[in-house]
């Protein structure tokens, strides 16, 4: 297979799944610019090894690249103070204080989800955004099925602990 064919194949695959990869990256990173960086890193890594990647596993490979890049980004930037022009999402107390009475009118789950550990966030995103079964999530993340379930349970418990009360319940 010549280089032009490989390039054409890769470009076609990347265009088909670009939106999916960006959605996953936005969900795990929480911001659009960081998501673009993650996808760009994943695409570059995948293109270098595109000859060896099976087409039926290519999407899983790219998902894994994005999640690993997100972990690397978290390790690289943890503990570093980032200056922003505007205040970020509200913190947990403010989030609870601003919780409305209707679940549909509630504020976004984004701050709560971003506060979760990286692996729990990845498990929840793969389960509820990509609708992957637990065994495929385990294969993507390189962990066991039991770990997937425990991480999902802890993530949901953390979301519940954010005191998101339904209608009629006083805060």
């Amino acid at each position: 297979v010549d280089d032009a064919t490989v390039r054409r194949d890769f470009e076609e695959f990347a265009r088909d799944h670009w939106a999916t990869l960006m959605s996953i990256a936005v969900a795990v990173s929480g911001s659009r610019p960081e998501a673009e960086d993650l996808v760009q890193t994943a695409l570059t890594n995948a293109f270098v090894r595109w000859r060896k990647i099976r087409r039926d596993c290519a999407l899983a490979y790219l998902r894994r690249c994005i999640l690993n890049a997100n972990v690397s980004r978290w390790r690289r930037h943890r503990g570093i103070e980032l200056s922003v022009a505007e205040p970020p999402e509200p913190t947990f107390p403010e989030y609870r204080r601003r919780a409305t009475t209707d679940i549909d009118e509630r504020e976004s789950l984004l701050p709560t989800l971003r506060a979760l550990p990286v692996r729990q966030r990845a498990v929840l995103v793969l389960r509820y955004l990509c609708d992957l079964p637990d065994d495929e999530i385990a294969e993507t993340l390189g962990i066991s099925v039991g770990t997937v379930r425990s991480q999902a349970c802890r993530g949901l418990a953390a979301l519940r602990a954010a005191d998101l009360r339904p209608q009629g319940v006083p805060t």
Partner: protein
Amino acid sequence: MTDDHFDDEQLEDALRRELTSWRVPYNSTRADEMISAATSAQVRRLPRLAAPLATAAAVLTVGAGIAVFAALRPVDHAIPAGGTTSAPPVAPDHVVCAVVRPLPIGRIVVGPNISEPPARVQQRLVRQAERRAHLQLRVARREARQVRSGTLRPPEASVEPLPTRVTLHPVPVPHIATATCAVLPRAGCLHASAKHICTVVVRSASGTALPPVTPVRAAPSPRPTRR
């Protein structure tokens, strides 16, 4: 619903709805930019052992450079005249005292601080004098109590008073042929610690020539006389 919280099903539905709402619509311009950037990057996968081999080569290079530098570095602590061994290099705050050969008085070369005893030595001498004065006072009080009780006859003559200041006297230099080497914390310590000052060559760390100074030591403290 459990208690006053959403149950798992509600929470899962809300989370799924939330995540789905984050879906990024396809942007052909941005996608083409990212894909072209990924395909145009001239990134080639390095061999698996490239990074460890590069690290090992860097470490060996630095080590070899240090070894060559140490081998070619001139020795700055030469052997003194008539000596048998060279003084080890020490920190600038230290001096090296090396006994090399019996020599007549006046050939003792000491560090730059030897002309005036350091403040630490002076403080020690003052403390010794204070301890002696305190001991003399205690002895005098005890003797006074014994005189009052009749167990001790009063002294006939006055006791020679103890010196409140320790005087320093010159010490003759005996001949010691054994070669020793000692590192003193300061040049002034040579006064109080060396009992037998002999042919001592004290060199500073920089190896500069130092003026000769007569060695001295503390005078023996007189013992209080008792009857």
